[in-house]
């Protein structure tokens, strides 16, 4: 009988403590390096890059190290006056992904006044389709990620009333699979990242009751491998970002205690680079701001008190969500 599993082995000399100062230094200097090839390649998702870095800094209580006024000015310049949407970078086309990142950043800064809110609302409303789904931009790609972006964005702007919530929920539920999970479209394979998007949508729309909670939570727990790390689909390697997607979903389902927290924490800590700072997808790989945010946010959900509490639905500091008086639904057991 075969019990082999795709997994990694944690080395004895791995980082075992949280290197907060290193991560703060890493993010503060990220992209300032003129030879940073990776950074030039990520211009097309700059807005999300700012969101990852700022949120990570906020969670560490270090956001004063980010150039606040420049960031706000940059966002203002990325809003397209015609459609109302926001782009990844100046001169790029607007997209719902970057519109959300921009709104999240402005919400953290309490500076939503810096953009044309009605324009953003108009843009998101224009992307909803007859079946309740959302386009990502005018080119018509449909994905449950975009449903989540739409409701998260509108709720941060206190304008959830602008779209058809019932249809939004209906579409997301049509993506539920036979294993209780969710994919990107009806029939697409269950995937932990997309489960986060779908559960998050239901959390914001307060329709968590529509889930098969135990079955879904079990599927999510099955993502945990002997190394302690989590994968996103059966028979895939563990990746740090799934610590966030799986655990935030389990938090919304109120079943986070079903995973083995100790070994997961060891895995997350092992993904730190003790020289450069930052977290990577797997121990020993190159770090980036995306995995750095999800590493810190994951540790926060696990109860690490040197990091601020993170809201599992929004992936933003809980204090921001409280200030905005938002109450995303957490399922009661």
């Amino acid at each position: 009988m075969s019990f082999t599993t795709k997994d990694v082995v944690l080395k004895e000399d791995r980082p075992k403590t949280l290197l907060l100062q290193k991560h703060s230094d890493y993010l503060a200097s990220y992209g300032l390096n003129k030879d940073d090839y990776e950074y030039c390649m990520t211009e097309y998702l700059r807005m999300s890059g700012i969101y990852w870095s700022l949120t990570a800094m906020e969670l560490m209580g270090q956001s004063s190290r980010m150039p606040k006024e420049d960031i706000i000015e940059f966002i203002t310049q990325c809003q397209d006056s015609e459609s109302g949407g926001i782009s990844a970078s100046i001169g790029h086309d607007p997209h719902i992904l970057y519109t959300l990142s921009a709104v999240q950043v402005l919400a953290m800064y309490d500076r939503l006044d810096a953009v044309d809110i009605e324009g953003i609302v108009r843009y998101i409303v224009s992307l909803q389709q007859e079946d309740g789904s959302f386009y990502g931009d005018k080119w018509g790609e449909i994905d449950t990620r975009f449903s989540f972006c739409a409701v998260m964005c509108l709720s941060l702007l206190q304008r959830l009333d602008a779209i058809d919530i019932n249809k939004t929920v209906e579409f997301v539920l049509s993506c539920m699979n036979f294993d209780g999970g969710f994919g990107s479209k009806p029939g697409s394979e269950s995937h932990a990242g997309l489960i986060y998007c779908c559960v998050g949508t239901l959390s914001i729309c307060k329709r968590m009751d529509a889930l098969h909670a135990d079955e879904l939570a079990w599927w999510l727990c099955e993502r945990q491998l002997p190394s302690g790390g989590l994968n996103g689909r059966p028979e895939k390697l563990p990746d740090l970002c799934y610590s966030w997607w799986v655990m935030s979903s389990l938090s919304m389902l109120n079943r986070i205690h079903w995973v083995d927290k100790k070994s997961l924490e060891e895995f997350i800590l092992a993904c730190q680079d003790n020289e450069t700072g930052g977290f990577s997808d797997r121990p020993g790989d190159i770090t980036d701001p995306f995995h750095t945010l999800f590493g810190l946010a994951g540790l926060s959900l696990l109860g690490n008190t040197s990091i601020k509490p993170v809201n599992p639905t929004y992936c933003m500091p809980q204090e921001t969500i409280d200030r905005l008086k938002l109450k995303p639904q957490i399922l009661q057991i």
Partner: protein
Amino acid sequence: MSDCGDSDVLWIPYKERPEWSDVTPVPEDDGPNPVVVIAHSEKFEDVYDYFRAVLQSNEKSERVLHLTKDALELNPANYTVWQYRRDLLKHLNTDLRTELDYVEAVIKNSPKNYQVWHHRRVLVEWLQDPTMELELTGDALLQDPKNYHAWQHRQWAIKTFGLYEKELDFVDNLITDDVRNNSAWNQRYFVVNNNLGWSDLICQQEVCYTLEKINFVKNNESAWNYLRGLLIHDKRGLSGNAVITSFCEELYKNKCRSPFLLAFIIDVCEDAIKKKDTNCFHNADRAVELCQALATRYDKIRSKYWNYLCERYKKYQSEQLSNDNKTNDLIIDE
């Protein structure tokens, strides 16, 4: 990727090309105080400075179509360049067949990129011709049988143009190659659910197929999940199909302790309890015993989950005792 592809010695920068002398390149503008200083390789900078220039002047010409190709070669994930390229294709009335070949080549180099697959889909929609799609996605899945983008595109083409005919054979080949390929099992469900339908005959066929695969590799999450999924459509439910229950008991008897087998037997117990159709194999006592075995021995990492289930069945046991002579209509799901 480690460099900007500067290896081609024949490359002439746009700023040195006479046919582009009428265009003034536009360097990246990050606002008055750049949030982050970005250093590009010379080639990257040159191409994108000219791309920004034509974007501003809204130039729609053959030379810009070439320019977008250079820009995409440097970064195929830049969705603005793809969007502009589509505008160009329409405006210039370009032969879309050539474009199909082009995007196929890009997909081969960047099979995990949202933008290229989306571009492909738009082209197929414009042409209303899906004849190449099964082969294209099949090739991509040969390289990486779990490529989510390729599966999405394949499902879209199959559903939109009704290309179900040979799909089950395709899936069967993938499952034969790797019986743990969850994407392939998902596709199997997709085909049966959208095309064949869950008739009694099909259900029974799928049960046999799945049990055969489980017999081959017992500890296979995907196959067990598929079995559960297809039984949603079997009116006999989880506990009412003797082929399945005796298969499971046989495995158990032969010392198989795969967590997925034990979990499945627990679900059979649950179904039997719900239907008030418990027997000596499938009842609350057995469920408690299996939950405990999983929590303490066979799946310790998820012990909290198994303990939670265990408590549910224990509660059921005690309630059953206290209600011994009453008709009790206990519903054990929440």
